[in-house]
């Protein structure tokens, strides 16, 4: 049964090869491949929910030398999010790229990206993590420059270089770990790692590298241009999934592997950076003149929120309250993933229809594209953290943790961040619902509008009302030192 674990990685990989070989049918292959990997992920999830964390040693080689795949609650949640988002984006992209000559390139890279993501979430070995991280970064960069404009190339290049630098830092951390503990298997390391200079240095290097990739303030500067200049489906996955991958790694490292190394001060520093990111990102989003740029800055802010959890998690005693906070963190990440991808897809629809995405000229959107405007509104609700979205629940728990730990400093950050989020969201909606001729005349509901609105609905309704599943899954851990 554990062989199941190979499929979420293998299916997109094989599809990528197929798409490469058969470019004329690449759209079909891409969508189908994504759908099949969705199926694989669902099967894996069922297995995990029923019988707890599962593990697979590839090729029968024992962990240490071979490649281990592990699935536990956290990875299943991330997998589900990424596969659902990518399914929706794939449907959207099938329309978006239908007339593009680059469509076969897109689909190959797209499937590779999914492969990398799934492998990253399932990987149980630090070096494999590095490899998948690089694979992810490279395919993301290429996807990001598919738009072909000068700005997008420039941004992608910048993204690439910085991503490489981050990976290098990560890799050197991996080396230090190997030097210190003689293994790279995460399950073994979770037991072995103790507080000490090696662990310290390794953790800081790895975290530093990942911070670049997750675009935490002040290392966020590459993100807005890269995300806002990519084609819409690519921006969606970049913001929703690729950034989350780095974040997932940080969580794994901090909570499962280095849980004895992490100190309150370190967590506090990350928290402070997160706080500044929240304020700065929201403020910049409010100032943004373009829709996609606004969304990108909003990602910066949302990433900041996730980092706010770290000092709280570090301060909470192990047990239910901590699990609740952790669940909230995951829920926030998931909600953001769905909401932001929906947002970018909607932005893409508007851009295709209007030929621009200048916010001030979006009047008439609501009349011409009601479904898309609705999507923007729903996604905005999730970004602000209003009910019934998942982020509302997450924010509630975040505040609750603030009160429990007594770290009052985060209270104004959260409050101002929420108000700013409200401000930029409703600024956009105000323009979108105003009368005007900014967007062309109304056509029927297009195929490309549906995936976006579904994603937004998941963020606002499903993750709101069925969020307790998150809290049930998160404590299922494959790692001894973890929170299980």
């Amino acid at each position, binding site marked *: 049964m554990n062989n199941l674990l190979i499929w979420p990685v293998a299916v997109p990989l094989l599809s990528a090869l197929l798409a490469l070989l058969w470019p004329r049918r690449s759209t079909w292959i891409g969508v189908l491949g994504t759908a099949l990997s969705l199926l694989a992920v669902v099967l894996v999830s069922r297995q995990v929910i029923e019988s707890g964390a599962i593990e697979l040693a590839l090729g029968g080689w024992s962990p240490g030398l071979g490649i281990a795949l592990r699935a536990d609650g956290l990875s299943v949640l991330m997998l589900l999010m990424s596969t659902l988002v990518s399914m929706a984006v794939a449907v959207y992209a099938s329309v978006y790229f239908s007339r593009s000559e680059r469509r076969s390139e897109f689909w190959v890279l797209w499937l590779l990206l999914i492969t990398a993501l799934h492998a990253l979430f399932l990987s149980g070995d630090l070096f494999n993590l590095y490899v998948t991280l690089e694979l992810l970064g490279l395919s993301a960069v290429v996807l990001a420059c598919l738009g072909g404009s000068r700005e997008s190339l420039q941004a992608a290049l910048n993204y690439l270089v910085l991503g490489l630098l981050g990976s290098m830092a990560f890799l050197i951390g991996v080396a230090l770990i190997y030097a210190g503990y003689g293994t790279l298997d995460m399950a073994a390391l979770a037991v072995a790692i103790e507080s000490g200079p090696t662990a310290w240095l390794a953790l800081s290097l790895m975290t530093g590298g990942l911070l670049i990739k997750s675009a935490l303030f002040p290392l966020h500067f590459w993100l807005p241009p890269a995300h806002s200049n990519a084609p819409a489906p690519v921006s969606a996955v970049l913001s929703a999934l690729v950034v989350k991958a780095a974040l997932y790694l940080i969580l794994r490292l901090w909570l499962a592997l280095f849980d004895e190394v992490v100190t309150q001060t370190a967590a506090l520093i990350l928290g402070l950076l997160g706080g500044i990111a929240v304020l700065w990102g929201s403020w910049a989003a409010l100032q943004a003149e373009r829709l996609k740029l606004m969304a990108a800055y909003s990602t910066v802010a949302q990433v900041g929120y996730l980092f706010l959890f770290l000092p709280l998690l570090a301060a909470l005693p192990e047990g*239910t309250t901590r*699990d*609740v906070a952790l*669940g*909230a963190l995951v*829920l926030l990440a998931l909600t953001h993933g769905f909401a932001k991808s929906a947002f970018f897809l909607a932005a893409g629809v508007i851009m295709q229809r209007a030929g621009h995405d200048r916010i001030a000229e979006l009047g008439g959107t*609501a*009349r011409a594209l*009601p479904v898309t405007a*609705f999507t923007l509104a729903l996604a905005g*609700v999730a970004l*602000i953290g*209003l*009910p*019934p979205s998942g982020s*509302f*629940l997450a*924010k*509630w*728990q975040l*505040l*609750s943790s603030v*009160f*429990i730990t007594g770290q009052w400093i985060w*209270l104004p950050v959260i*409050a101002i961040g*929420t*108000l700013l989020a*409200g401000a930029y969201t*409703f600024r956009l909606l*105000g323009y979108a*619902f*105003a*009368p005007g001729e900014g967007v062309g005349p109304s056509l029927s509901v297009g195929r490309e509008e549906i995936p976006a609105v579904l994603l937004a609905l998941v963020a606002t309704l499903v993750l*709101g*009302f069925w*969020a*307790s599943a998150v*809290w049930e899954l998160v404590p299922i851990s494959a790692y001894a030192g973890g929170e299980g």
Partner: protein
Amino acid sequence: MAMSVWLPVGILLSSLIPGVLIFFQPEERHRLRTWLNLLGAVIKLLLVGMLIWGVFHEQVFETRWTMAPGLEFVLHADALSVLFVSLSTLLWLVTTIYAVGYLEQTPHRSRFFGFFSLCVTATVGLALAGNLFTFVVFYELLTLATYPLIAHKGSPEALRGARIYLRYTLFGGLLLMIGAVWLHTLTGGVEFVEGGILQYANLDQSTLRWIFLLLIVGLGVKAALVPLHGWLPQAMVAPAPVSALLHAVAVVKAGAFGIVRVIYDVYGVEFAAELGVLTLLGAVAAITIIYGSLKALSQDHLKKRLAYSTVSQVSYIVLGTAIVGPLATIGGLVHLVHQGVMKITLFFAAGNYAEALGIHRVSEMDGVGRRMPGTTLAFTIGALGMIGIPPVAGFISKWYLGLGAVEAGAAAWVLPVLIASSLLNAAYFLPILYRAWFKSQSTPWPADKTAGCTRELPDALLWPPLTTAAMALLIGLLAAAPYSPLEWAELIAGREYRQ
């Protein structure tokens, strides 16, 4: 058993489902949309009827759904929620009919009615919320559902009004949420229990005071307590049915209802008095009452005058809540219903004036009674009720508030406030009535759309105000009859002060 779980959900769904369906209707399917709306409203009315019967006989209706660890989504029907639910359901039906007539031949009706239904869903959910968490959820939902309604016309003023509304309510919602989370963290769950829960919780009193402040400021934004009332006069740019709903049922009432909930079912009124927070609240309410009336005096714009009147009147509810004692409680609670019925009448009438003759200002109303007798009759009844002239409903509220104040020994400051407010109400309502009935038309109507019609207005516009005016008269006249709002308020007060 199943019934007791499904009834609250059913009441929510009866407006949610039509609302969602309406969103997807093309603009021109007018008839289907109307049917959906009315069907939902009637079903809701029936369900609420069942609920009323059940709650009266002390049946328990409760739905629970765990959303997150420690966070339960609870719909629970107690006497207080039934009071608010039945008000909103009844007025929703009337307002829907009115809105169908009012918005005939205007664009974006699907969107409008969709949000309209959502707005009612949120209000009903608010009423049925069984704990603070659920309340916050619906409180925010209400903000979201109302924003598009205020911005509906899409004109710069409408957008500006909506923006201001949003600024205020998001801020308020945030404070409410912070307060709610804080309290939730301290107690591990804040269920609404008649008589309150906090007096047994043994918590630090000054913390509880801070939380109270957060909650009340959060709720006070919607309840338009001075100085948090700034959005309300701006929001009157909305179409008349929206203003009617906003002022009578949905937003403003939600705030007042929340204050009632927090004081009675979270803190417990005696405990809140012990904390010393009620005096402050009472003072704020008193200031709001007077200030709103004073501002209303100087408004020439009819809807603005009504808006300031709402600011003033809704604080009657808060005032009744801030005075300890069952009689004041009855006064406050019953005003929740009475103000709704009377104010909705006034806004319907104001909408009719604008719709039929283009009248937006008081100074244009000379002699309008002769031209539109039905509408003006409804307006008159509503206005007299606001002043508190028997036997219109408003008198009953004022009576109980005053009694409660005397009983609680607060007569020295409450009675002057009530009297001053009544005088001011008279001062800004009676001139309107005077112009309408006694003066003769001095200038041509600004935009006469019904010239040459034999009837005053289409039925859908004329009957809603007449119905609500009749209701305002009847619930005042038959205040002591069984199942009247007063009876319910007494039932609630009896349960709140039971222990």
